[in-house]
C-alpha cells in the first residue's frame, strides 16, 4: 500500500525524470559484479577463524578464534616464506628500478630515431608474454642441458644447476623479473625525460657544461620526482613477490629460498585443502598489504601530489 502510494507520488516521478538517474543505472552492473566477486570473498574471510568444513559451510563450521594464527606462527615455514617474500621483493624493487632508469638515460642520449625506436620495440616485447610462456623458455634456457650453460661452457664455467640450486635460483628469479619488465617500466621514465625543459640544457651548454655534467645536474634532478614516486608505489606492493613468476619456475628443491607467502598459501590451501589455515595466512598478507598500500598512496600524495583519480 505504502509502496503503491510512493510509486504514484510526485517525488517518485521526479526521481524517474532526474537527469542523474541514468548515471545510477550505469554503475549498477559493475557494482553488482564487484559485490559478488570482490566483496563476498571478503565476507568469506570468516573461515580464517573457523575450523572450516566444506560440508557445513560458512555458518555451520565451528569457531576457533585466533587459533590458526597461533598454529601459523609456530610453523617455522611461515617465517621462512615471509623472509623470502621480503628479500625477493626488495631485490626486485631495487634492480627493477635502477635498470629501467639507467636504460632510459642511455637511450635518451641516442638521437637517431629509428635506432631508438627499434631498441624500445625489442626490450618492450617480453613484458607482454605470460609467465607460463616465459617460464617455459627460462626453464629450457637455464636447464643443465640448456643454452646458458652451453654459453658458460665456452668460458670453462659451469655447468650450473640454476633451477635446482637455492642460491642460484634466487638470482634467476630476480634477473628474469627485471628482464621481463624493465622495457615496460622504462616508458614512464622516457616520458619524464622528454618533459624536461630544453632551455635548461641550452643555458647549461652556454655555461660550458658537458653532457656528463648536464646529465648530473639537469637530467637526473628532472626525473628524480617520478623515480621517487615509482619507488614509493612499489613499496606498497612489497608483499607481492611475484606469484605468477615463482609458481611457474620453482620446484621442491628451491623452496628454501623461493617459497613465498602466495605460493605457500596455494599449497597448504588448494593442494592440501587446509582452507582455514590458508585463509588465515592469506588474511594476514592482505591486512599487512592493505596497510602498506595505504601508507604508500599517502606518501605518494604528500611527496609527489599523486592521486589515482
Amino acid at each position, binding site marked *: 500500500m505504502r509502496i503503491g502510494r510512493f510509486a504514484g507520488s510526485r517525488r517518485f516521478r521526479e526521481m524517474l525524470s532526474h537527469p542523474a538517474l541514468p548515471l545510477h543505472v550505469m554503475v549498477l552492473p*559493475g557494482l553488482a559484479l564487484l559485490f559478488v*566477486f570482490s566483496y563476498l570473498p571478503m565476507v568469506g574471510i570468516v573461515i580464517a577463524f573457523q575450523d572450516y568444513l566444506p560440508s557445513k559451510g560458512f555458518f555451520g563450521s565451528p569457531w576457533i578464534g585466533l587459533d590458526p594464527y597461533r598454529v601459523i606462527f609456530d610453523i617455522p615455514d611461515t617465517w621462512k616464506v615471509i623472509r623470502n617474500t621480503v628479500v625477493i621483493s626488495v631485490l626486485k624493487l631495487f634492480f627493477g628500478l635502477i635498470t629501467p632508469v639507467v636504460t632510459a638515460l642511455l637511450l635518451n642520449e641516442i638521437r637517431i630515431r629509428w635506432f631508438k625506436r627499434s631498441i624500445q620495440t625489442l626490450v618492450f616485447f617480453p613484458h607482454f608474454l605470460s609467465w607460463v*610462456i616465459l617460464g617455459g623458455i627460462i626453464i629450457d634456457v637455464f636447464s643443465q642441458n640448456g643454452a646458458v650453460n652451453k654459453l658458460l661452457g665456452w668460458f670453462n664455467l659451469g655447468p650450473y644447476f640454476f633451477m635446482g640450486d637455492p642460491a642460484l635460483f634466487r638470482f634467476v628469479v630476480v634477473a628474469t623479473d627485471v628482464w621481463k619488465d624493465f622495457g615496460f617500466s622504462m*616508458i614512464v621514465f622516457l616520458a619524464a625525460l622528454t618533459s624536461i625543459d630544453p632551455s635548461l640544457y641550452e643555458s647549461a651548454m652556454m655555461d660550458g657544461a658537458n653532457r656528463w655534467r648536464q646529465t648530473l645536474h639537469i637530467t637526473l634532478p628532472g626525473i628524480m620526482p617520478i623515480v621517487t614516486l615509482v619507488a614509493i608505489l612499489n613499496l606498497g606492493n612489497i608483499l607481492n613477490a611475484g606469484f605468477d613468476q615463482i609458481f611457474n619456475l620453482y620446484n621442491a628443491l628451491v623452496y628454501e629460498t623461493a617459497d613465498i607467502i602466495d605460493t605457500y598459501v596455494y599449497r597448504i590451501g588448494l593442494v592440501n585443502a587446509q582452507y582455514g589455515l*590458508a585463509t588465515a595466512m592469506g588474511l594476514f598478507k592482505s591486512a599487512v598489504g592493505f596497510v602498506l598500500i595505504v601508507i604508500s598512496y599517502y606518501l605518494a600524495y604528500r611527496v609527489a601530489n599523486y592521486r589515482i583519480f
Partner: protein
Amino acid sequence: MASQSWSYRVFFFFNCVILVSLSLLCILPFIHILAVSLSGNGPTQANEVGLWPVEFTTRPYEHVLSTGQFTRAFGVSVRRVLLGVAVQLILIILLAYPLSKEARNFRGRNVYTWIVVFTMLFNGGIIPMYILMKQLGLFDSVWALVFGGGWGAVPVFLTVLMLNFFRQLPKELDEAATTDGAGEWMKMLRVYLPLSLPSLMTVTMFLIVYHWNSWFDGLIYMTDTKNYPLQTYLRVEINRINNPPQNMDESVVERKVSQRAAVAAQLVIAMLPITAVYPFIQQYFKEGIVLGSVKG
C-alpha cells in the same frame, strides 16, 4: 650536437654496444626457442641448437597440432578472450563514464568510487574466492575465467584509466550536448565514446593481453582438463618437464619428437597471437601508461 668531443664519442660507442646487447638479450631467447622447435630430435637432445634450426623439421608442430588437447585449449583461450574483452569493455565504460562526473552533478559519485577503489586495496584472498566460485557453480564454466581472473570481475585499474580519459575531454562539449537536450546515455554514446577511440583501444589491448595470458584461474576453477585455457594447459606440460617422474627417461628417448621440441613448438604457437598484435599493443600501451601515470 655541439659537444662531439673525443670522450663523448667513446661514450656514444659503448652506449650503442650496451643498448644493442640489452635488446639482443630480450629477443634472442625467443629466437632460440623457435630454433629448438624446428630442430630434429638428435640435435635437440644433444643441446646443439643455437639460434638456427639443426636438421630442420616441422615434426614437433605436426605432433602438437595432431593432439586434440592443444587445439582445444587454444579454442578455450580464444573464447575467453572474445567474451572477456567484450563483456569487460562494456562494464568498464558503464562504470567509468558516471564516475568521471563531478560529485555535485552526480550525488553518490564519491561513495561509488570508494566502493570500486577499495577492491584494489584489499581482497579476500584465493581461498574464499575458490569457495565462492564453487558455490556459485561456476567451476568449469567460461564465466569463471571471464570474472574470476587476477584483475577481478571489473578491472579497476582500467576503469580508472578510462575515467581519467573521460575527464580530460573538454567540459564545453558536455554542456553543449546537455543544452541540446541530450541525456546521459546519448552523451556517452554520441559524444564521449567517439572521442575516446584511442583510449578504448588501449583498454581493449590491455584486456586482450590479460585474458590471453591468464592461467591461474584456469588451473583452480577448471576441474576437467578439457576446459583448460591454453596457458593453463601449457603450464601443466612445462611442469612435467621441470619435475619429471623418475621412470619417464626411457620413453622420452624413444619418441620421435623430443619433449623439449614439442614444448618449444607449443610455446611458439602460444606466442603467435601476442606477436601478431604487438605493433598495436606497443602503440596503445605506451599511450595508456603515459596517460595513466604522468597526468597533470
